[in-house]
């Protein structure tokens, strides 16, 4: 081993002679150990979340309105188709004056029971469809933004650091994708609840901010390489496949 290195390591304790000011601990006590979140990142997150929710809301509202119109049409169509039948039955039963109670019963059933059944069925499928469409809207809006960010990251050429340097980001993205699958499976099982929708939106937001952080980190490294004016080695330049 290097003699100077050996000597300094042996006398390491004598080297540690400086002491920090007591202010350091005081500052630490004032500042609670809470995870720092960049203000810009959180504002962006909230803005993205708000946009997506507004889009999803508009989408759901317009679809529900459209379905409502269709339901009305179906209702009207069924009423109009039921009326001639009622008249047909009336005509057919008119000669049989001896049993008026039965006629009335038949009229009641034809006038009310048949269309109501149809409405119930239509309403049920509308709610399910609205859920699925809302989910699809949220998913599509986020996926567009995420894919845009992913493409951005994938097209930035890197002049320094190896691919392993960014492996933490890759692991995090894979984990988020796993979580996304789990939440989706839950939605299939339990239907789209507010809680599950929140979880899904949260996952997309984290994914987006992770990709943003990766881009910032890559830019920082590239800027540093540019600042020190090291010649760019085109062979060592690579792109991240994330």
């Amino acid at each position, binding site marked *: 081993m*290097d*003699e*100077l*290195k050996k*000597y*300094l*390591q042996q*006398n*390491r304790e*004598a*080297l*540690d*002679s*400086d*002491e*920090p*000011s007591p*202010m*350091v*601990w005081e*500052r*630490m*006590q004032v*500042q609670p*150990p*809470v*995870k720092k979140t960049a203000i810009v990142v959180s504002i962006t997150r909230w803005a993205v979340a708000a946009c997506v929710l507004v889009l999803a809301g508009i989408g759901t509202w317009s679809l529900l309105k459209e379905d409502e119109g269709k339901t009305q049409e179906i209702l009207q169509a069924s009423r109009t188709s039921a009326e001639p039948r009622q008249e047909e039955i009336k005509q057919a039963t008119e000669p049989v004056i001896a049993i008026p109670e039965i006629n009335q019963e038949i009229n009641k059933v034809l006038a009310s029971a048949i269309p109501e059944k149809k409405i119930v069925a239509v309403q049920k499928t509308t709610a399910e469809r609205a859920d699925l469409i809302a989910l699809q809207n949220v998913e599509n809006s986020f996926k567009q933004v995420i894919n845009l960010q992913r493409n951005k990251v994938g097209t930035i050429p890197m002049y*320094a*650091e190896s691919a392993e340097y960014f492996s933490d980001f890759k692991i995090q993205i894979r984990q988020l994708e796993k979580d996304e699958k789990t939440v989706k499976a839950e939605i299939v099982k339990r239907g789209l609840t507010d809680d599950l929708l929140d979880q899904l939106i949260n996952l997309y937001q984290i994914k987006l901010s992770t990709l943003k952080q990766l881009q910032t980190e890559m830019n920082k*490294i590239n800027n*540093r390489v540019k*600042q*020190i004016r090291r010649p760019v080695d085109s062979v060592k330049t690579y792109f991240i496949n994330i």
Partner: protein
Amino acid sequence: MEQETTIQTAIVRKACLGDQTSQAWLYKQYSKAMFNICTRMTGNQSDAEDLLQESFMIAFRNLKQLKEPAQFGGWLKRIVVNECIRFCKKNTYWTTWDEHWDETLSNEEPGWWQTVDIKMVHQEIKSLPDGCRQVFNLYVLEDYSHKDIANHLGISESTSKSQYHRARQLLKERIIKQIQVHG
């Protein structure tokens, strides 16, 4: 020794739950050694204090990740060194040093440092220029290889070696000058 480990384990567990007294105990126990790593790496008290504070905050925040509480010291030191490296990467601009360091070292008088006061050596290490100071500290005191230093600081292995030899040469020149002036 075993009792010390047990005490530390208990204290780390309490600190993990946010107990301020335990955190204060850990700070008191390790702050001096960690602060000296920071001063040697940054070369000034103010940045060193900021890094020390940041490192302890990171440690206390992530204490749950520490599987072996007895290894708190080593774990904290890794955090401190990593924070120092991060700081250096942000603030150091590397320039090439063209002198033939291999020749200068072969002419070096062996063991010249043994007659020098260790405090003076420490003082001169802290006042070495940016770049070579960090490489010197990582190589000599933190026991990093030149390959590791190159990977961590984003420089080539040969830059790391040449910066180390530059640091040694400067250290010797400055100490000799100090002895000549002050005796």
